[in-house]
């Protein structure tokens, strides 16, 4: 089979196994020790790049939380058809979930994960279920207002535990 042929047009028994291709290693050549480049001090410096953007992240996330609030207000005032805003809230929560921990805000990732899951679970929420969403948004606001990094210790456990109890009750 040629490279441009559609492989899904193969016959049922036609399976090609192509040996590993060290394409990038070949480009790098014999004199580049990639293991040395991608380890130790170099990784620490690469992590510094991420850490240096922590303040930027905090600015972005404040805007995301404002957008969550806007979506929430629209959804609650249009409770008969909140689907578009629920979808948008899930998307915003997913973004915070994905990036919080990257910048050291692991608790924010967990809260946003719970919010993302809940929004997807209840696309047409009741008023009580909207209260659960409100609590998640408020918790995210508190995390960044008080700059709660990592898992937040005991306070973090308490905040998250409260949310998960609410989610369980109203799911």
């Amino acid at each position, binding site marked *: *089979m040629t*490279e*441009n*042929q*559609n*492989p*899904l*047009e*193969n*016959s*049922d028994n*036609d*399976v*090609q*196994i*192509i*040996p*590993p*291709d*060290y*394409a*990038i*290693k070949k*480009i*790098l*050549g014999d*004199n*580049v020790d*990639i*293991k040395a*480049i*991608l*380890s130790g001090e*170099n*990784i*620490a*410096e*690469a*992590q*510094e*790049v*991420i850490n*240096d*953007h922590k303040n*930027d992240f905090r600015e*972005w996330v404040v805007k995301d939380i404002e957008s969550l609030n806007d979506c929430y207000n629209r959804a609650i005032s249009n409770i008969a058809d909140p689907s578009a805003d629920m979808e948008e809230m899930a*998307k915003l929560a*997913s*973004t915070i*979930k*994905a*990036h*919080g*921990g*990257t*910048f050291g805000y*692991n608790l924010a*990732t*967990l809260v946003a*994960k719970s919010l993302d899951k809940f929004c997807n679970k209840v696309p047409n929420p009741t008023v009580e279920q909207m209260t659960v969403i409100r609590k998640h948004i408020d918790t995210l606001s508190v995390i960044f207002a008080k700059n709660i990094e990592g898992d937040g210790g005991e306070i973090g456990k308490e905040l998250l535990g409260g949310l998960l109890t609410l989610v369980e009750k109203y799911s």
Partner: protein
Amino acid sequence: MKQYTPKNLSKEVAERLALVNILIVDDDIKIASIVRKVLESLGFVSIKLARDGTKALQIMREGRIDMVITDWRMSPMDGINLVKYLRTSANSPNRFVAIIMLTGNVEREHVEAARDAGITEFVIKPFSAKTLCDRIMALIESPRGFIISKTFVGPDRRRRGHLLPEGNDRRNR
């Protein structure tokens, strides 16, 4: 703007690293820029950015790309459809390109869907420099055989444990 440049690289090594063409595909340009700076800090300087799969394919048709680092959720063409297109389309610009899926979609079904679409490595968001470096190292140092069949096109999935997310990011959540 702060510049991130690698330390202690000889001219020869820097020139070699510059030959590796990397494409980052993410609709969140802020995060894509950070990933780019992380790579630049390690010495990879030939980096292009695309906001979605369609733009990524356009860039890949314009010149050789050796490694794709793609997000999942994008539109109009998301990351998983980009991977499927690259692996199976008759018009793929490079069926065999190394692909890292960098995504917040971390449920088991997502990992399996990405694997079945033909990704090379999987990095979950939140991510650390170490997790990303580990996966880049794996695809350079330990590439897998490539399977072309009626039902699957991509790196051999039998090295399954290797593909599943690892690193402290996941376990600590």
